[in-house]
């Protein structure tokens, strides 16, 4: 019995060692690929440096947030509800100024940008919300056309890209539909089309799959992935851990109680050992 047990243990240890080695090898290869790509082609387009955010005179919602986002990469931002994901994203898409620290965006200090320069920067960032935030009195077509009209694109040049976007998200037959007549998944696809029609350099999505069924969540993620393949930096905040493995090259950041768990902001793929969904 003892000999058998010893044999089994020995075999198990060998198998484990082999599997670990294989996994480690695969991980290293992937990391090398990412690092190689990072150093060769990807410039950092976002850099947070010891950023803190405080609402009013309350405690800091986010503390010492430091990280960089590489151009053309895909990021998941995870963390429990209330961890500060939305606050972090709001600073990223310039809806909120930090209380301290610096935010380098497209090579400029976004935290110190004068108010009249913010719109120009915001047009370079697409945003998708969990609650879609479509204008209810406008059709799908007009909602998607908004960024173009805001940017001053002439009406003659609006229709074609909007139709192209509707086609891309699979809603070419719903261009006149008002948001309230669309399903959650359809609304989110309109929101994604609106976010990307201006060819943003960064796409920020805050819990984009929170209000859709799992199948639709995968389809939406596929849209983000295809956009990322075209060179857009994508940041998706989610606490849906089933989605994290769907994008093979995605980087991950984890927030916990207002702090980025990896203080250096280095990105992890695949998840480090012991990485587990936040409670």
């Amino acid at each position: 019995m003892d000999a058998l047990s010893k044999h089994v243990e020995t075999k198990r240890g060998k198998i484990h060692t082999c599997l670990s080695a294989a996994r480690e090898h695969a991980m290293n290869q992937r990391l090398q690929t990412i690092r190689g790509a990072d150093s060769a082609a990807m410039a950092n387009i976002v850099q947070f440096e010891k950023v803190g955010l405080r609402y009013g005179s309350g405690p800091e919602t986010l503390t010492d947030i430091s990280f960089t986002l590489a151009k053309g990469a895909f990021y998941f931002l995870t963390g429990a509800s209330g961890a500060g994901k939305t606050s972090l994203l709001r600073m990223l898409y310039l809806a909120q100024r930090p209380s301290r620290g610096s935010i380098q965006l497209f090579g400029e200090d976004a935290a110190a940008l004068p108010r009249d320069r913010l719109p120009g920067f915001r047009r370079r960032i697409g945003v998708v919300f969990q609650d879609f935030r479509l204008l209810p009195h406008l059709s799908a077509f007009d909602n998607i056309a908004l960024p173009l009209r805001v940017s001053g694109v002439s009406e003659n040049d609006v229709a074609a890209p909007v139709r192209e976007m509707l086609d891309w998200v699979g809603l070419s037959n719903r261009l006149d539909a008002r948001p309230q007549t669309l399903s959650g998944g359809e609304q989110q696809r309109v929101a994604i089309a609106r976010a990307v029609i201006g060819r943003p350099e960064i796409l920020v999505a805050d819990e984009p799959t929170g209000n859709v069924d799992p199948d639709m969540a995968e389809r939406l993620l596929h849209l983000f992935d295809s956009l990322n393949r075209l060179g857009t930096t994508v940041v998706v905040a989610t606490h849906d851990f089933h989605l994290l493995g769907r994008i093979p090259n995605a980087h991950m950041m984890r927030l916990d109680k207002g702090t980025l768990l990896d203080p250096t902001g280095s990105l992890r793929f695949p998840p480090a050992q012991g990485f587990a969904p936040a409670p």
Partner: protein
Amino acid sequence: MKLRLTTSVSDHRLLDERQHTRSTMWIMAIMLFLTVLAAGFGLAVLAASSLLDRQLAGRLTLQLIEANETRRDQQVTALVAALSAMPNIAHASVVDRKELVNLLRPWLGADGSDPDLPIPAMIDVDVRMADDAAVRRVETAVKAIVPAARVDRHERWMSPVSNFMRLIVGLAFGLVLLLATATATVVILVGRAGLETHRNTIDVLHILGSTDLQVARLFQRRIALDTLFGGVIGTGLAVLAIIFLGMQAQTLGSDLLSGVALGPLDWIVLLALPVLFAMLATLAARFSVLRTLRRLP
């Protein structure tokens, strides 16, 4: 940065019209109705006051208090002759005794018609160049011929009326200013309320890269249109009211009220008021909305 939101985005009704009540338009209609009435009244009274001033300026009445009828008649003849010879006098005529008796009837009753009752003689005089110096020259000439003659300037009698009319004109234009201020205040409040009502839309627009100016234009356009439409309604009603009051005043046959009338220029001013108020509202909305938006992150 090129801003072309006015022609594109605003035309696409970015602000939810279903959330927009027409109350602003009706408030503006009431404001403009009151403003045009006040302005019309002020302009009409100003015209009447000017007419009165023109009519009374240089008009004199000479009064000869002489118990001796023969001597009085001689003085009257001498004065009329002297005044008629003066180049600056447009007209000098003796007031008929019957007319004098009529004037005195409230005080003397039927006794005034007694031919033996000595009644002062009166001469109406119109001076062409009705400045003070010209009137004083006439006064000196009259005193040289009849030292006891009294010279009454009509202007002096009517100065309380004239002053009162000027007061009314001032009050009317003060009302116009107050109403303009009230309109601007209403617009500011409407603008702020609109920002709250359309907060979600504004947030989305900002996130998509709208400038404050683009957002402000949406509001100023809406408020300008409301003010213009409301203003046209209010002005139309006020013009009808003014025409009606004018017709009523004419039927009274009063000399004083006959001067209360509006000239072509006055009508142009009144009809320009809704446009001016729309411009004022536009500026007020722009200022207010921009100021509020600047407080956002």
